[in-house]
């Protein structure tokens, strides 16, 4: 069987297309590359969904935490505290048990116990909390002068936020937010590893890597393949986030934009 056949058979195996049974014997490198790559689709799915949805909630959390009213501040603070203060690993475990007990009592929540929704919800809340804290920090550092300038132009409320505060906040937060995005994608490997069961042998990259490690009894091939895929993924994320970051900074003189670069190294990760 040529490698192309293998790719045709297993390229979308993680989504349930192609061969029903996983390879059982005579494992080839091509099979390992194909299946682990196929599993990577799940990592990308979880990462993208959580990042996009988490972005919205993160903005809300940051505003809530900076709010003067305790009705907004307290819930935001506690959400951020709970999700940042505990290991994601345990959040997955705990969320799975919680979803299971919810499932029995409330109708319409059945899908929560499957990974595609349940794990996405956990990752969404988790990344929202981390990004929320980053945005909150950035929000506090928005220069007073910019806000005053907005006032002088007669902007207020939503307009002022959308056109002045929010873009500046994003610009300041971007290096740290890039780090958060990288870590989020790395964290997606925990989905099938703890808590959420893999159904019909459809799992993420780590699931297939450990499948091969189990079957070939040799961890030295599949895990480095997995690592290679993730390094590539990380580079893609850095490139994409860099593009957006450059757009956010496009009004700044070039020298000033580059002068900011060292900050990227010192910033937040988890």
């Amino acid at each position, binding site marked *: 069987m040529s490698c192309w056949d293998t790719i045709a058979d297993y390229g979308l195996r993680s989504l349930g297309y192609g061969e029903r049974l996983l390879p059982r014997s005579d494992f080839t490198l091509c099979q390992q590359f194909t299946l682990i790559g196929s599993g990577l689709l799940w990592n990308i799915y979880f990462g993208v969904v959580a990042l996009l949805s988490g972005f919205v909630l993160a903005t809300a959390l940051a505003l809530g935490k900076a709010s003067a009213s305790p009705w907004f501040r307290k819930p935001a603070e506690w959400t951020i505290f709970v999700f940042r203060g505990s290991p994601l690993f345990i959040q997955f475990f705990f969320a799975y048990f919680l979803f299971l007990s919810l499932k029995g009592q409330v109708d319409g929540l059945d899908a929560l116990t499957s990974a595609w929704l349940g794990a996405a919800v956990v990752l969404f809340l988790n990344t929202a909390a981390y990004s929320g804290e980053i945005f909150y920090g*950035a929000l506090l550092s928005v220069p007073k002068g910019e806000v005053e300038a907005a006032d002088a132009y007669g902007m207020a409320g939503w307009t002022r936020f959308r056109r002045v505060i929010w873009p500046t906040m994003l610009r300041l937060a971007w290096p740290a937010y890039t780090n958060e995005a990288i870590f989020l994608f790395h964290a997606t490997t925990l989905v099938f590893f703890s808590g959420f069961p893999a159904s019909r042998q459809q799992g993420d990259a780590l699931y297939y890597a450990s499948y091969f490690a189990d079957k070939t009894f040799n961890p030295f091939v599949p895990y480095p393949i997995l690592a290679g895929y993730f390094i590539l993924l990380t580079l893609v994320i850095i490139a994409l986030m860099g593009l957006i970051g450059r757009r956010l900074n496009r009004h700044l003189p070039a020298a000033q934009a580059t002068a900011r670069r060292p900050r990227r190294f010192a910033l937040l990760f*988890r």
Partner: protein
Amino acid sequence: MFSYCADPDTLEGLRWLSCYLTTGKHLSFYWAFGTVLLLLAVTAPVALLFGFGGAVAARSRVAPLAWFGKGYIALVRGVPDIAFFLFFVIALDQGIEWLRHQAKCPDWDQPIRQGNDFVVCAEAKMPLSTSAQWVHEVYGFWLAVFTFAIVFGAFAANVLFGAMRAVPRAQIETGEAYGMTRAQIFRRILVPQMWVYALPGLSNLWMVLIKASPLLFLLGVEDIVYWARELGSTKTPQFTDYPHGDWRMWYFLFLLVFYLGFTRVSEIALDRLMRRLTHGQATLGGGAGRAGMTEAGPP
């Protein structure tokens, strides 16, 4: 533990609970908390050391050394830590045994890899298969420490690298004006000055390290997650004196509370330290320089 625990079937309520929570298994669970704390306490300085080495290498003027430092930082940070843990410990273990094998058994004529088996001579085994169980435990613990330190060393290197660059250029120029050598500048100006810039990143790293500790069981150390899963699972009356249903949720809730408490305490302590270090320093402590670096939490 208590005298009245001899016949748990007759017990009820609090008395039953007091017996249940003091079984040998539960004591191992409580010990596991100690193991986790000890691992964190040992790993943090070791990782910092690795990080320092990595940062110095990455800054080096010798190109291969700089590549090595930057490669180390990029490689380890680019890979999910869990993937790293899954094969690194076995690789490390075999690597150590292979080196010992080369040193101790030069006359060995059989291949080391026999099919899937990794075979070294008995004297090269780490630890020796005749050694006591606690030696195996201690060895496993140190392997875990080392693995954690390598991973978190890369992150620490990244922070320190940034912190060294953040030291104001003027400070270094002043040193040069005094005629200090490069090594003197590094020792007397750069290193003492960089800590205040590194501290936010390092305290963040400490939080990350705490939250990575449940991955310990991947490294073969029986940690609190292992025990919580084992203790919480359904117990049928045939195999235990304390049968119960699926209690994993409660055990994990307990772990969640433990971690929340632990990170909160660390946060407060680090905040105090930061305030003290920035006291009188010409940085924006609390201002823009710390954007996004303060840990979250209700005040």
